[in-house]
């Protein structure tokens, strides 16, 4: 039932992916500038540039080029980066896990801190905890992630140097054998606990910097949705029947309020993939967002298309996951799906 609707959404997502691939494929190629010339540099001869253009079918009509791209994609080949001269899939496999690890930890921080702030704000509406919570949320929302990055580096890396400000691990820590690409997981799989804590230590500042905007948004949304729910008859009923205030807040008011919040949380999570770029720059984090911007600047055609497709796929998958979660916590949708 739920899975049936998830499959339907997956189908829709595939269609969206085809559309995005055509769009980004065309956009990357109509942008001014000759990618072969940029890749080979100003000193290359015209013959060398022409050779590279021929090798990459850059002179063929767009539909032909797209067809070649699709054929290669069906073999799991996203082409070759003009810049690193490696298969794009290799580059992505190297950079994507770093970003995913960062974004996932940020999302966890966003939820674990943003939700309680929102719940407490609504519960103590108009009183001190509410004012504090709203202030935190407001500052979080209106300060860009890279500013958070610099502030956190300044305070916790310089004035009070308790956190490293760059990279994923110390120089002295051996890079764990690559299994998932998530250092937090790989270090534990390798049984290297000190390396795990080193990776975590490096993750905290960038993850907090990236989480702040979403955290503020989560707190604000949770608060306003909770306050709306507090006016519903079923909350008066809960109070009239002597349910404990804490139980009302965390259960009877939270669940109905969380349904609309969750949808936005999914979007915030997806937005982090894009925002990660600035945080990755500030913290020297070798992630896919930084890679994506680098390849756009170099007009590295295959790499641009590959990166955009991967990020779009992550976005779409996230949306499907959120839809499934919403239908799990919202009985109306769950039961309607069961009938259909």
């Amino acid at each position, binding site marked *: 039932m739920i899975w049936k609707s998830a499959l339907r959404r997956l189908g829709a997502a595939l269609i969206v992916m085809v559309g995005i691939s055509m769009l980004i494929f065309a956009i990357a190629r109509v942008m001014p500038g000759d990618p072969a010339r940029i890749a080979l540099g100003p000193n290359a001869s015209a013959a060398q540039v022409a050779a590279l253009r021929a090798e990459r079918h850059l002179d063929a009509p767009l539909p032909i080029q797209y067809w070649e791209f699709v054929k290669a994609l069906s073999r799991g080949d996203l082409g070759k980066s003009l810049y690193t001269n490696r298969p794009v899939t290799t580059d992505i496999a190297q950079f994507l896990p770093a970003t995913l690890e960062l974004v996932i930890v940020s999302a966890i921080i966003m939820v674990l801190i943003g939700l309680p702030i929102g719940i407490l704000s609504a519960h103590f509406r*108009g009183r001190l905890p509410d004012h504090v919570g709203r202030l935190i949320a407001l500052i979080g929302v209106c300060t860009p992630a890279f500013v958070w990055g610099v502030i956190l580096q300044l305070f916790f890396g310089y004035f009070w140097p308790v956190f490293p400000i760059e990279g994923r691990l110390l120089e002295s820590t051996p890079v764990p054998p690559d299994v998932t690409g998530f250092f937090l997981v790989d270090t534990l799989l390798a049984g290297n606990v000190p390396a795990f804590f080193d990776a975590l230590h490096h993750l905290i500042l960038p993850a907090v910097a990236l989480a702040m905007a979403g955290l503020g948004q989560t707190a604000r949304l949770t608060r306003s949705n909770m306050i709306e729910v507090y006016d*519903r*008859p*079923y909350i*008066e*009923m*809960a*109070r*009239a*029947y*002597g*349910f404990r205030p804490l*139980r009302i807040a965390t*259960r*009877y008011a939270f*669940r*109905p309020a969380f*349904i609309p919040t969750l949808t936005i949380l999914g979007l915030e999570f997806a937005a982090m993939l894009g925002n990660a770029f600035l945080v990755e720059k500030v913290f020297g984090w070798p992630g896919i967002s930084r890679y994506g911007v680098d390849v756009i600047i170099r007009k590295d055609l295959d790499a641009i298309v590959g990166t955009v497709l991967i990020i779009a796929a992550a976005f779409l998958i996230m949306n499907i996951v959120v839809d499934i979660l919403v239908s799990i*916590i*919202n*009985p*109306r949708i769950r*039961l309607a799906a069961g009938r259909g």
Partner: protein
Amino acid sequence: MSEPVLTIRDLRLAFGGRRGHPVLHGISLHVRAGEKVALVGESGSGKSVTARLAMGLLQESPRVHATGSIRFDGIEAISGGRDIARRRGNRVAMIFQDPTSALNPTFRIRGQFRDVLRSGDRGISAAEADRRAEAALAEVSIPDPKRALDSYAFQLSGGMNQRVMIAMALANRPALLIADEPGTALDVTVQAQTLGLMSDLTEKRGTAVLLISHNLGVVREFSDRVYVIYRGRIVEHGTTAQLFAEPRHPYTRALLAAIPKISGGGLPDLPERSPEFESPLIVHEGCGEPVEARA
């Protein structure tokens, strides 16, 4: 005559603090054990607010300024607090206008019923709570209690939800049941059925009922005694028989005249305000304040 379960004396309420907007101007009423009392008035007269104050539901708000006295079950509830909170769902329960929206849409009846029973017995086990919930639902003639417990409110009909509410309200055998326009959101037949059910069950258990209503037909069927409330004041008080046979206050007369009649003639007008309606309280014979409260 038994001692009242609920005695409200000179209850005044203003929204927005001491100098705020006055809503109640000295309400006094009492409900004795096992008695069915109606509080009748048009919307905005202050009847619902009186009921909510009696349950201590409004006092938390800093905008609410209430004075006077609300004695319930041996405690003073005028300023809210833990004593009255502990009695909610246990010694006093409430039935709402629209039962479907009064049940949480994201939890099954089972979970909500368990929490209701926990208000009466904090240590009750889930299995014991379910057993008692099933028995309570069977008592309100719900055909398949197990299935009802596993349902969400939006899966049940309004009438079914009303029965569930009645079962929840009476599950902990409260001394007082406050029914706030019960079932006004339901159709007339279902409303009559559930009122009958509520009447039977409370009579059987000796539960006192404070019925809040604007519907004089319902009041006449249901209650022993009636308070008529107009713009935050009680204007007439008597037994149901007295009041319907011989309404004395101009407002009560106007209310009674406004009951639509099948014989035709359309709906008579009830003037929104009239200087006559402000005339002083009329108490019918034998309906004075209880001796205990006066002392």
